[in-house]
């Protein structure tokens, strides 16, 4: 399977089947998680009452924001060291999607924060700020790529930024432990395993899986488009050369 990710041709074949599967399975998981979250699980008054149901979007979105940036950094690293074109294509595909999920995390967090903490936004909160800047990093990555004149240079510049920006990910993850924050500390992904009640935990994990699958499917679709675009550019160049 891994070889399929190294070779564009094999990747196209693999993703033609995998992307729809990912969409389908992802949507199923998300819908099931939402159904559980919105109608089945009991509300938790300590977490703001019914508004806590936004958790089933907020937490998966937060996870994906961090995972997608890590993916961007890893893909950039792979491209930088081994020059696998597919790694660059993956990085380019991840950035806008990562930005969307990060924005989703911020939006749902704010919506949840207004009733529970009494504020949409807390400026000196390290967690919120670091997630906001993660969004900035994604946007900066895209702006930087867009301002370069050739694909090769865009890839190199983007890779440098993505690798350097990876400092932010641990900061996000551990910000709640390092600083006083309004935000609760991690209760799912912790060193001693999950501490959340199972009623919440199962739908949350299923939702998380669903978001990951949907994200993966979208990344594959973006990559397919990009591979085809690069092919067209190459063929056009060859045709012009005569």
């Amino acid at each position, binding site marked *: 399977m891994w070889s399929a990710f190294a070779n564009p041709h094999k990747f196209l074949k693999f993703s033609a089947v995998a992307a729809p599967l990912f969409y389908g399975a992802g949507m199923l998981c998300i819908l099931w998680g939402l159904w559980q979250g919105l109608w089945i699980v009991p509300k938790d008054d300590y977490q703001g009452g019914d508004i806590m149901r936004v958790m089933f979007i907020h937490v998966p979105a937060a996870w994906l924001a961090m995972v997608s940036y890590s993916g961007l950094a890893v893909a950039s690293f792979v491209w930088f060291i081994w020059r696998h074109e597919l790694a660059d294509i993956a990085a380019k595909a991840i950035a806008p999607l990562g930005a969307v999920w990060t924005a989703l995390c911020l939006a749902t967090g704010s919506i949840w924060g207004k009733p529970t903490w009494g504020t949409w936004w807390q400026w000196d909160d390290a967690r919120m700020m670091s997630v906001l800047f993660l969004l900035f990093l994604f946007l900066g990555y895209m702006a930087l790529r867009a*301002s370069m004149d050739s694909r090769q240079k865009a890839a190199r510049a983007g890779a440098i930024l993505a690798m350097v920006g990876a*400092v932010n990910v641990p900061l996000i993850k551990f910000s709640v432990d390092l600083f006083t924050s309004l935000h609760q500390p991690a209760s799912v992904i912790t060193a001693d395993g999950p501490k959340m009640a199972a009623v919440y935990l199962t739908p949350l994990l299923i939702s998380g899986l669903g978001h990951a699958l949907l994200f993966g499917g979208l990344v594959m679709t973006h990559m397919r488009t990009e591979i085809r675009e690069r092919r067209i550019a190459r063929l056009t160049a060859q045709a012009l050369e005569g």
Partner: protein
Amino acid sequence: MNAAPIWAAFRQAFAEAWAGGAGALLPLGFLGGAAVLVPLGIGSDTETLKAVGPGIIWVSLALSSLVTLERIFQADVEDGTLDLWLQTGAPMAAVAAAKTLAHWLAAGLPLALASPLLALMFQAQASLDLIAHLGLYALGSLAFFFWGGVGAALSATVRRGGLLISIIALPLYVPTAIFGSLAMTGGIGSDGAPMLLAASTLFACAVAPYAMAAALRLAAD
């Protein structure tokens, strides 16, 4: 490793930093200007001013490091100096670090040194704390300059890339800004903050030069 080219890079950058007019006086002017404009907008309530003072100094440091750095590497690309540095045989990361350090000495450190004065302008009580803060500002601004250098190197081929630099560099500033203000406000959990600030600066000094070197090679291509 032969230190001569690195030392030469440092000297050239330092001369360049001072050449554009009155050297360190200018960043001071910039900081002073910001310090004057802020209370104008805010009003002169003593309590408010005291509360915002340190924050404003941090922000001024961050912004003026951006303004200073915008041209460093871009100028090198435009006048052909970068080609020469890339071919000295010295590790480019060391050259980039030397240049950044020179610009920090010329423009960043004077700002940090001026910070107690500014704090007083913001109605802070004169105390030994101000001197301690000076050290924090100096540390933090060093990290700003290194991360800013990465942004500057990345956008060196893009004319008027100054604003692109901001977008790239600001997220990199965040850890430093967070630890720095935490160390200053001295709230709960701030015991380790000066150490964390130092660590984040050290990290910047260790990682940023390699990123700069890669970005500069790209800019020459």
